[in-house]
Structures are given as C-alpha cells and as structure tokens.
C-alpha cells in the first residue's frame, strides 16, 4: 500500500512509533474489524479504530439511538436520537476518517447469520450488553477460528479478555449464559458512562496490537477493574480441556440462540 502525503501526515504519530512504523500502519490500514454493538463499548472502539485508519470497519446493531444512550455512547449525538445506530456510527466514522470503509448491518447477530458475517473479518469486538449474544460471539469465533475481544461493564466495574484460537475462551471461564434476568444489564442496574470509554479503549488497543503484532495480547488473562477504587487486576485463566465449545470433546457443535431477558424482548417490540 502506498500512503499519500496526507495519510503519512495523518498517521505520523503511529508511523514514528518504533514498534509500528509504516509497516505497522499498513497492517492497520489493511485490517478488517467487526464491531458487534454500536453502544457504550462499540462507540469508543469504532472511534479509535477509525482514527487509527483501520481499513474496513463492520458494525452490526439492530437498534436506534435513544436519548438515554448519549450518557456513554459517544459516537451518537443529540441530533441522532431515533436514527439507526449503525447509520449514526457510520456518519461519524466517515467524518473522522474518510479512508475507512464502513460496512453496516442493521440487524441482530443470530445463530443463523453469525458465521456468515464474521467470516469476512480479521478480528471481532464484542460490544454487546447481553449474554446470549456474548456466548454466540464466543462460539462463532471459536468455530470460525477468529480472534475476538470480550468486554463487559456494569455499574462501576469492567472486564475484558482477548480470545484467539487455542487460548482460554469466554466459555472456558463462564461456561454457560446465566438464566434470563438473573444478571442485570446496564439498562437495569446502571453504569457510569466513562467506564464504557475505559473498557472500549482497552478493546480498541487489543485490536491494534493484534493487527500490528505488537506486544502481548490479553489472552489467558481476564482484566477486571473497579472505578471506585481504580484498581485493575489481571486474573490468569486457563484453556479448559472440558470446555463445551473449545475443549477436547466439544458438545456444542452448532450455534445457539439463547433466550433473551424478557425486558429486552419487550423493549424490542
């Protein structure tokens, strides 16, 4: 890839990084990343990846912008209320960096479409707020051999882990989704808006590390933080040989659409 003078200028702070350079920026510019959910986590991920010049960004989200989203979903503005989130996100990405090709999917990720959508991407980012889709992303990525970043936030806490083929997967740690409504979502329990920015930028950093090959990914380590104490911890986790999707004898061989929490279903209608 030959960068124009403007592009060399735009990405100069990457290019002068010894670990990145022109070569690393080329890898970023050739990267294809899918962001599942254009919400609290997807917003900072999309903005930082767009700014970094990731060549292709796919965004899947079936929702429209709600006024209550704006407290943390910084890619959407007041004028975007009621607009499709994927469209609102695409507009901001294009304004920030016209180099980026944005592919939008205004739909939900399901067992039926997941493999077909993720197969075109190098890296998947989980920016969803519900466990059925978190497990779906995990299982689809494990089956398709795709790396992904899991992210979760609630109240004042966040957690993230990066999963690549062969490393501990989300299911190695959390086994199966909790029953519907057993664990509150942000819309039920609240979340400090800036937490989404902390966690989302960590996820974006992992994407850029993966694309450039710089550093050590957050694999086999679950990073957790609490904003009240501002304590960060990484907990070592192991690939579980008994894991039902990536273990030695997987029992899950097809994707599953788990039941959603009832309040989520109601708000969808």
């Amino acid at each position: 890839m030959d960068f124009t003078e403007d592009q060399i200028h735009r990405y100069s702070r990457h290019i002068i990084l010894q670990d990145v350079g022109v070569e690393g920026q080329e890898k970023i510019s050739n990267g294809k990343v899918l962001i599942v959910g254009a919400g609290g986590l997807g917003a900072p991920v999309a903005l930082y990846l767009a700014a970094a010049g990731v060549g292709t960004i796919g965004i899947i989200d079936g929702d429209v912008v709600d006024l209550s989203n704006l407290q943390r979903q910084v890619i959407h503005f007041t004028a975007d209320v009621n607009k499709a989130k994927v469209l609102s996100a695409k507009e901001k990405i294009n304004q920030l960096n016209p180099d980026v090709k944005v592919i939008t999917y205004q739909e939900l990720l399901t067992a039926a479409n997941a493999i077909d959508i993720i197969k075109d991407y190098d890296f998947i980012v989980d920016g969803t707020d519900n466990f059925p889709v978190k497990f779906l992303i995990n299982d689809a990525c494990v089956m398709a051999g795709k790396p992904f970043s899991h992210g979760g936030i609630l109240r004042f806490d966040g957690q993230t882990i990066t999963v690549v083929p062969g490393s501990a997967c989300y299911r190695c740690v959390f086994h199966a989704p909790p029953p519907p409504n057993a664990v509150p979502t942000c819309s039920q329990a609240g979340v400090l808006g800036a937490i989404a920015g902390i966690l989302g930028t960590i996820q974006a950093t992992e994407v850029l590390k993966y694309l450039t090959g710089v550093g050590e990914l957050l694999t086999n380590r679950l990073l957790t933080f609490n904003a009240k104490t501002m304590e960060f911890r990484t907990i070592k986790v192991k690939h579980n040989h008994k894991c039902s999707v990536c273990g030695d004898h997987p029992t899950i061989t097809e994707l599953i659409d788990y039941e959603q929490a009832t309040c989520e279903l109601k708000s969808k209608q």
Partner: protein
Amino acid sequence: MSTIQVNGKVQEVNAPIALIDLIKANNVEQPEMVSVQVNGEFVGRENFSTFLVNSEDEVDFLYFMGGGSRC
C-alpha cells in the same frame, strides 16, 4: 487463623473452609452465578459445598458482566 488470598487481597480465615462458606463470608451476590478459581483451577459449581479452601490458597471470584449495546 490462616491467610488466603481472595481476588488478590489477603483474608484471614479458619482454614480449611468449605468454598460455599467462603462465598457466604464474602457476601458474594448471586453465588449461583459466580465462577470460582482456586490456585488457577476452576471449581465446578456442583462442588462448591464440598471443596475445601486451604491456608495460602488463592481464590478468585469471577462475575458475569454485560454492558455495551443491545444487539
């Protein structure tokens, strides 16, 4: 009293202590939802009442966390 580590912090307990009692002592919200590692190995939920935590053990409680966007 013996010392163990819970989520990276030192705690004094009467070891050995059943994992389920440690979960109660730490006021873990929704014990049926927590994933537990002891010395880096996961303990199946069905073994919470029989598994014994010993002196010097490192225990991690891992919680489900959603967040992000409905999708």
